[in-house]
């Protein structure tokens, strides 16, 4: 190419890019969440100016916790900029190991950056609702703040998973020096990039959903303090279910880091058809679960929040409401399950023949990436929509319990239709995986 480019420069630029992703992306969710918390304080002060000290204090607490997500991003960015990490550079030129080690830095940055978005947003939403709850019932501040902290702690957890994956990618996933660029290097790149995207994007929806549940629980406690036991219980139950998409993402990211490894044959030669095909399938599997959890995480949050609100409005119906919540959440979970299935199929089931040519492997690469994107993005809308329908149904049952039958029937009908486009996406993904070459 004519320009002097060394492995050391590649590692350096990768660290810069990783730092940029880590800080830039993490700031998004935190800043929006902090702004939302401030908006809560403004509403409160306008309504009851004599309590401004209390509202501003609560705002600061919420903002501090929301800020923590951005701090994780800042820490990873600073580590990438200033902390020496073994990269085993060799004298001159660019080698496969430089690409691999560089990419794992970028992947680490992506993992933390993306993973912090949902937590920042969710925590900010919870903080705003804490202030609104204090507006309603000043004497309940102890309970409200305690529950706010609990909810925020759970909302933080997907960002913690992302932090762990990010640290592993930066410090643990690396390759000893090798010469040239072999097929194994390409697969290692897919491994790190895939793990980063899967965990990073996969943490967004769940964290937001958990924050939404907390934000519906706090005003409910303010309205029905006598029922706080049932409300907090339902909050935890629904938060546990809402955590599951982030767990799926953590599982896929862990599989990519710990289970996937290039074969001897890949290391032995330059990039072969099989390697390009495998690169596509690992990336496709990561994208499928990374995108596929966004909508469902938030949708489960709608459902759980709706359940808590409904119980507050009609506490005698707690049994029915919790039961309906579980059923509705199961349906809301289904698009993410499809995405997990496609992801696991890509990771474990599809395999390219050893002697595959480069041309055919380009087809494979496109097929796998296409399938992963189709199912991943295709799960977003239905996840959101089914969750919205669940929330509507739960609130409706609380308002008009006599008509529970009609409400639940219509809920299922509406959910089934909403599910349809995720089925189309599943069909397109299967066609790409198994019906074409």
């Amino acid at each position, binding site marked *: 190419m004519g320009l002097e480019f060394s492995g050391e420069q590649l590692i350096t630029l990768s660290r810069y890019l990783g730092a940029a992703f880590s800080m830039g992306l993490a700031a998004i969710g935190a800043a929006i969440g902090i702004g939302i918390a401030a908006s809560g304080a403004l509403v409160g002060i306008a309504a009851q100016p004599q309590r401004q000290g209390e509202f501003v204090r609560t705002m600061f607490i919420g903002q501090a916790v929301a800020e923590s997500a951005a701090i994780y991003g800042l820490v990873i960015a600073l580590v990438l900029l200033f902390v020496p990490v073994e990269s085993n550079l060799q004298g001159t030129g660019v080698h496969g190991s430089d690409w691999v080690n560089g990419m794992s830095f970028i992947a680490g940055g992506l993992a933390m950056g993306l993973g912090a978005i949902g937590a920042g947003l969710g925590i900010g939403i919870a903080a705003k609702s804490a202030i609104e709850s204090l507006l309603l019932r000043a004497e309940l501040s102890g309970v409200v703040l305690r529950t706010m902290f609990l909810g925020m702690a759970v909302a933080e957890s997907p960002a913690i998973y992302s932090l762990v994956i990010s640290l592993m990618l930066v410090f643990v996933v690396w390759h000893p020096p090798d010469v040239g660029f072999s097929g194994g290097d390409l697969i290692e790149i897919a491994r790190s990039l895939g793990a980063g995207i899967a965990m990073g994007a996969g943490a967004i929806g769940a964290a937001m959903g958990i924050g939404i549940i907390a934000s519906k629980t706090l005003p409910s406690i303010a309205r029905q303090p006598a029922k706080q036991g049932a409300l907090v219980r339902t909050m935890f139950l629904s938060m546990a279910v809402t955590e599951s998409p982030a767990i799926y993402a953590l599982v896929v990211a862990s599989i990519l880091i710990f289970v996937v490894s290039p074969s001897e044959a890949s290391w032995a030669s330059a*990039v072969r058809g099989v390697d390009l095909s495998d690169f596509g399938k690992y990336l496709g599997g990561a994208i499928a679960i990374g995108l596929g959890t966004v909508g469902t995480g938030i949708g489960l949050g709608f459902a759980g929040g709706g359940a808590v609100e409904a119980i507050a409005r009609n506490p005698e119906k707690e049994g029915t409401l919790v039961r309906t919540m579980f059923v509705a959440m199961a349906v809301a979970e289904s698009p993410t399950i499809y995405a997990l299935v496609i992801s696991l199929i890509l990771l474990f089931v599809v395999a390219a023949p050893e002697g595959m040519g480069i041309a055919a492997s380009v087809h494979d690469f496109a097929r796998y990436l296409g399938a992963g994107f189709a199912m991943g*993005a295709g799960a977003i809308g239905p996840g959101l*929509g*089914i*969750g*919205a329908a669940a929330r509507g149904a739960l609130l409706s049952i609380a308002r008009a319990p006599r008509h529970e039958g009609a409400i639940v029937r219509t*809920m299922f009908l509406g959910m089934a239709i909403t599910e349809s486009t995720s089925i189309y996406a599943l069909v*397109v993904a299967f*066609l790409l995986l198994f019906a074409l070459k």
Partner: protein
Amino acid sequence: MLQDVAQGISGQDLVTAARYLGAGICMGFGAIGPGVGEGITAAYAVQAIATNPEQQGVLVRTMFIGQAVAESTGIYSLVIAIILLFVMK
């Protein structure tokens, strides 16, 4: 490195790759909107039934109509994806 990989690839391979990726992109994005829209419709439908249960028949029918129109764009996306996969060369 890239030169070694590029030697075995023809323009037609890239066209095929674009078909497959395109089908995935088309159906992937295309599933988002109908999911959100139909879900919102269902949510409001059940709330309306709680408000006025005698009108159930009309309400559910209207929900279907609203969801059907929202579905149309999802169908278009599926059709284009299938065309990319099986009709285009």
